[in-house]
């Protein structure tokens, strides 16, 4: 192991490490802790300039209730779910098919198509912006959750195909050859043999796509306007403009908006990290 395990060092280093660990963590998360603390302050503290002292009273329930009752935050959050969940399902469905095709079959255009999917991943959004907006208007999905869902499915399919294809390549190919000898149809091979083995990949992609799409802000501003379709990232930006100097509300709103991906991360940490670190270790 590198660096040397701290247990094998001198007692003094060991104690220093144990002290340093929580101190660095607090420094690292200090901006976030400030926001969390502000979200439970009463409005009077904000006007009195008490930003960093102990709260004069705790208004956790009042602030969070105010955020939900006096603003369309709940509608924004609901929109985020309406966009995110169908996107996760759609992107995973499409990419398990494309990933299977590119991993299992040998044909001439295979690598070219694979590289197109990979390259699409790295494209700057701005080069897609004007045509995608026009396309959405023409299809009648501009300014609706469907406009966002369709775009996100298409875009996420790039990354998911890369992931799925490499995952399926790691599966034993003999399984498929054996099934072909038994005359199992190609689709049944996909559905009954490969798909059940893909569970870890499906889980990893589900958490990742959920987080990517939930946190998307650019497309939310390009393809939607107003509380009927806008997800929470764009909504929060709009509310920030309205709640000038109401920092306790901005903070509470920020925390609510960040919560779903954070919960997702803590519940599915192993899958999340497996997805993000794809390729970081030579297999």
């Amino acid at each position, binding site marked *: 192991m*590198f*660096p040397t395990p701290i247990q094998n060092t001198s007692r003094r280093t060991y104690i220093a490490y144990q002290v340093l660990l929580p101190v660095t963590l607090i420094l690292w998360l200090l901006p976030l802790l400030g926001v969390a603390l502000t979200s439970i302050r009463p409005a009077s503290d904000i006007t009195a300039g008490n930003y960093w002292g102990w709260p004069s009273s705790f208004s956790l329930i009042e602030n969070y209730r105010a955020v939900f009752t006096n603003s369309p935050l709940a509608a924004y959050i609901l929109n985020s779910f309406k966009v995110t969940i169908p996107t996760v399902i759609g992107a995973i469905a499409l990419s398990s098919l494309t990933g299977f*095709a590119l991993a299992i079959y040998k044909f001439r255009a295979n690598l070219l198509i694979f590289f197109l999917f990979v390259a699409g991943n790295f494209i700057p959004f701005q080069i897609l912006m*004007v045509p995608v907006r026009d396309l959405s208007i023409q299809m009648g999905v501009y300014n609706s959750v469907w406009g966002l869902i369709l775009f996100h499915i298409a875009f996420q399919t790039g990354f998911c195909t890369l992931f799925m294809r490499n995952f399926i390549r790691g599966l034993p190919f003999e399984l498929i050859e054996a099934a072909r000898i038994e005359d199992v149809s190609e689709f049944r091979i996909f559905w009954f043999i490969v798909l059940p083995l893909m569970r870890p990949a499906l889980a990893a992609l589900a958490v990742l796509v959920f987080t990517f799409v939930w946190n998307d802000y650019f497309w939310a501003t390009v393809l939607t306007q107003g509380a009927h379709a806008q997800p929470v990232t764009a909504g929060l930006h709009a509310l920030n403009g309205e709640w000038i100097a109401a920092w306790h509300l901005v903070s509470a709103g920020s925390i609510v908006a960040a919560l779903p991906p954070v919960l997702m991360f803590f519940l599915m940490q192993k899958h999340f990290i497996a997805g993000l670190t794809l390729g970081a*270790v030579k297999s």
Partner: protein
Amino acid sequence: MLSASRVWKENKLRIAPWLFLAPGIAMFSLYILLPVFQSISISLFDWDGLGEKKFIGLANYAELLHDDAFFTSLKNNVAWLVLYLLAIPAGLFVALFLNQTTRGIRIYKSMFFFPLVISQVVVGLIFSWFYDPHFGLLNTILGGVGLPTIAVLADERFVTYGVIVAGLWPQIAYCMILYLTGLNAVNSEQIEAARLDNAHGWRMLWFIILPQLKPATFIAIVVTVIGALRSFDLISVMTGGGPWGASRVLAYYMYEQAFSEYGFRMGYGAAIAVVLFAIMLVYISAFLFKMYREEKGR
């Protein structure tokens, strides 16, 4: 005569992949591939998004050469790119710091990872607040040690760096997790052998550990470069490109030209996007070239 089922049976392995690929390729072509070419074509026109398109050749690109705002954006993109790369060594050192097995270390690792999970909009709000000249933590600390107040986001000299620091926060977390995974897979026999040869600390890191972390470093460079060139969210939330356009980058300037109160200049916006795309294409090609070599090596 050949029956349909016979054709299928004989060519099954040639037709099947295209059936599996069809829905994915259709969506991807419609939303990603086609728009790239459409944008390149739009960049040759003068167009407000609604009225008649007027072909003007390369005039949009010629205009870019005399546009100060374009060069400010380009310069800021370079600053983003260079400073963002600091996330890689920083992430490595956090990973080395946390690569231990003491009690509760897993929770520490997750908490350090935290900023990456949060939306950039929230990160932007958190940092706007951190920099606030009246009550922000930064100026509270500066005041505490007797230094003058700095309005980071309202000062042309500091604004871009202030936004980049906000972006580094989640990016360091990303690089850290890549290196933690890499460190986990480092060959322990080599380390023991090197220890017997009296390699320690920096020498060990440089000659034994870093070479083994190469794949992690490669991915870290790729995601950091792409992240730096994509920067948009933080600028939109924290500064709106200001003050006086000092914190614009190409991605943000393009959006401003095409979609905001500055007017609907789709053609000019598309030309900016094409420049950004051309810059990114360098990295995309390098990445694909490396992948191609690996695929051929199998």
